């Protein structure tokens, strides 16, 4: 009954899945950048998101020194107390469903 039709069935099922979910489609990654600044003991991260509006279009995820993820619904983030030394900050934008756009930016700062 299915002889010779299997590859076509599998292909059709995959196409159907893609059509049904639509969630794997490639989306253009929004342009963004960020600056790091020391203010006393604090680290201030300012994210410039251009036409990507926060929180309407999504939000910002931040990781410091490969630590856990912090999430913000605004474009300024202040860590009140940072230890002196060199720190790495990674910023990514995500949509409201927490799906990343596939672009992350990384910067370092020396806290004195």
């Amino acid at each position: 009954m299915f002889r010779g039709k299997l590859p076509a069935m599998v292909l059709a099922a995959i196409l159907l899945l893609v059509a049904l979910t639509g969630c794997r489609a490639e989306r253009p990654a929004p342009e963004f950048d960020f600056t790091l600044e020391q203010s006393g003991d604090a680290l201030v991260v300012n994210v410039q998101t251009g036409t990507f509006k926060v929180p309407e279009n999504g939000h910002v995820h931040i990781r410091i020194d490969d630590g856990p993820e912090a999430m913000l619904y605004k474009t300024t983030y202040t860590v009140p107390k940072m230890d002196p030394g060199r720190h790495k900050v990674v910023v990514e934008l995500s949509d409201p469903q927490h799906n990343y756009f596939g672009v992350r930016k990384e910067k370092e700062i020396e806290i004195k």
Partner: protein
Amino acid sequence: MKRLVPVLLTLLLILSIAPSVGAHNLSATAAFSLTGDELTVRVMDVYGAAVEGAKATVAASAPGKKGQPAPLTEIQPGTYRGTISAPGTAEYDLLVEITVFEELFRGGIRVAAGESLAETLVPMVPIDPPLKHSFWGPVLYGAAALVLLVATVVALRRQRGAEEEA
């Protein structure tokens, strides 16, 4: 090898769900202070940054009971304050819920009646909302992958049976 292709494709589909399921791993901590019936809660994220603009409630209840949530007001960025209504038992529980957009965090502490509470750190546990709109994507994807897997197995078995009959 040719027969493995649909199975491998199905596995690929199942694996592709993984990044969208449980990918979010947020955490927060709250510092509870209680003076009289006035509760102050300072909410911080994993790096100690103030969690601003949240909706916060507190419910005071006898241990094991459910209390009526009362709103807390943000008095400064990341700090929320409100009045509790203690149930009159020797001890009671304070349950604070913080909602930052769609993210819900919950944390609680047991307090002796009539006693103040110096600033005490309480972990705020992220609670998955029952139905987020992102919920159905992975579920639909997973269900479809399961159907594809079962259909592939059935088709392969029938194909094998047809070959044996021939």
